[in-house]
């Protein structure tokens, strides 16, 4: 099967000499929902703009359905873009904004009206169909922008933080609508977002970018549970990273706080490599010091750390504990209030932390990453 979108060795160097994107390679299947996430300035928008044809490609190739489109002008590409700042046509009504792309593609007036009416209905825009941009709220503008991009049913829809201006409730309902539309229309989505929770909920796969490069491409669940680089581990979720040396490639590491074992190690690591263990806050369970130490060691297969409580925060049934390891290093524990044996823990109290080792991951040490 031909991939819907294929990026090969993509690079963008702006005229001022700044390289915003490099070595980006990605294959996206028809109908996939792929999110690009990463810190501000990591090259998400630049990547999207190269796919859309707004930005020239310095090196590498973009293929859509097997066709190389590097030099194809944007209006000829089977993509449509939804912009971070809406970019509505201010001199046209909402309905006209939405119909305009259909008119440009030669769709007959009757069908045009029908298709735009359908999408306006879905996005709850019928009441404001005759207004212009100046008379719309931020959320309404965003929905018009979505409708305008969706109505032409492009092969690939490129969305640059399209839900940024919405409040939490509206955001959730539009998210659902968006996902549903994407499914029913079978359109491939490339979705840039700052909100990782949004990416985790919506995407089939997530691309994490950092300084113009791809760090990791994974299904949401894998990204969350199996980060492949320290950067991803820090960027997604609430993880504590502890450096050490790999003592067994199958998943044992010697750390300053003691050995840990039974952890899943990144396949590329060899015995003796400098590495880091990623400790997800949810994989750590708190126990009072003085609890039966031997029993704990048995329960966690030896993965027990000593620490001191810094702060305890309980919200509904979730408890968040900030603790300090032997050398003062901070570590975060998150879980149900019933977990472990930690009732009545107060700041200053000693604490034993048990790790469910199968939920932790060992990744390469950061220095090694930097050298590459």
């Amino acid at each position, binding site marked *: 099967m031909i991939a819907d979108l294929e990026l090969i060795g993509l690079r963008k160097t702006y*005229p001022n000499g700044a390289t915003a994107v490099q070595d980006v390679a990605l294959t996206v299947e028809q109908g996939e929902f792929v999110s690009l996430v990463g810190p501000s300035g990591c090259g998400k928008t630049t990547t999207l703009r190269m796919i*859309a*044809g*707004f930005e020239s490609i310095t090196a590498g190739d973009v293929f859509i359905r097997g066709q190389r489109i590097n030099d194809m*002008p*944007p*209006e*000829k*590409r089977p*993509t*449509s*873009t939804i*912009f971070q*700042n809406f*970019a*509505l*046509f*201010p*001199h046209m*009504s909402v309905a006209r904004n939405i119909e*305009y*792309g259909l008119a*440009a*593609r030669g769709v007959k007036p009757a069908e045009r009206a029908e298709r735009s009416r359908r999408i306006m209905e879905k996005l709850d825009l019928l009441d*404001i169909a*005759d*207004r*212009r*941009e*100046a*008379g*719309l709220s931020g959320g309404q503008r965003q929905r018009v922008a979505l409708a*305008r*991009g969706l109505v*032409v049913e492009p092969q690939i829809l*490129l969305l640059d933080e399209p839900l940024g201006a919405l409040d939490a409730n509206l955001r959730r309902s539009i998210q659902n609508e968006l996902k549903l539309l994407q499914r029913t229309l079978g359109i491939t989505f490339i979705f840039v977002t700052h909100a990782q929770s949004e990416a985790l909920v919506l995407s089939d796969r997530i691309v994490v970018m950092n300084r113009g490069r791809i760090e990791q491409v994974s299904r949401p669940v894998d990204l969350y549970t199996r980060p492949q680089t320290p950067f991803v581990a820090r960027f997604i979720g609430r993880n504590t990273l502890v450096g050490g040396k790999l003592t067994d490639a199958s998943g044992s590491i010697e750390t300053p706080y003691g050995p840990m074992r039974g952890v899943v190690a990144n396949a590329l690591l060899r015995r003796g490599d400098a590495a880091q263990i990623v400790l997800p806050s949810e994989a750590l369970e708190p126990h009072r010091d003085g609890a039966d130490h031997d029993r704990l060691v048995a329960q966690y297969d030896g993965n027990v750390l000593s620490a001191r409580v810094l702060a305890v925060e309980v919200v509904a049934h979730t408890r968040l504990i900030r603790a300090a390891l032997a050398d003062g290093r901070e570590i975060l524990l998150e879980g149900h209030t019933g977990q472990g044996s930690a009732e009545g823990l107060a700041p200053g109290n000693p604490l034993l932390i048990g790790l469910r080792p199968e939920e932790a991951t060992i990744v390469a040490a950061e220095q090694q990453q930097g050298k590459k």
Partner: protein
Amino acid sequence: MERQPILRGLLTGWTALFLVFLYSPMVVLAILSFQSGPEGGPQFPIEHWSIYWYRQLFNLVPASSVAPLPLGGALLRSLALALTTMVVSTVLGTMTAQAFRRHFRGSGVVFYLVVLGMMVPGVLVGLGMALTANYVGIDRTWWGTVFLVHVVYTYPFSFLVMLAIFNRFDRSVEEAAWSLGVSPVTTFRRITFPLIFPGVLSSMLFAFTLSYDEFPRTLFASGGDLTLPLAIYGTFSVEIHPNLFAFGVLTTLFSFALLAVYATLMTLSVRRARRVAVQEEIA
């Protein structure tokens, strides 16, 4: 501001004074244009009020010792010249500004070369044009050499106006159109142009006005057929009668009419979006 009545009073006074100085010469001319005729002269006091000189302009009074102003042809020439200059300058200015939206090599040099057209002393430009025309053997005409120097003069103004407009123009609106499959040409016609229209109007007003009463460049660059400012100046050398003032009042009224057209079009294009939105909000 409300808390500083003294400053406010001062500013009001200052503005009033400014307006008085700005308009008093025109007011004086306007008053004198109602002098009695044909014996009344171009000075105070007004012997008695009449519209004799206005009628004289249109040859509606019996012939007298005062000859009718020889301005008809010059007026038509100046209007035609100003209109053409306005169109050409605005088109050129818009295209150049459009080119400047993306940085290209040598853009700095080109910028100053264009802007120089409005900076160099007009008399020199006119003289230079006359010499060049003589040298290459072209006749000096109002529709040739004069037209050229007028465009060189007004084009930088149009360019600067359009540059300012494009600076505030959101490029992604055009990109959105392209991404919907609209060709760049159609995008310019249907998306870009309506949005930069206020700037185009201003550029047209600038170019028209500047060309309409251009003097120093025209003085040397023109041949036998004079433009309006030159023809008016020519009448001074004979003898001044209030009919010139009457003419001045009429052309000023014409300018006001132009301004009114400009303001109306501007208001329409700027307010349209807001008004439609508001109406629907109320409905």
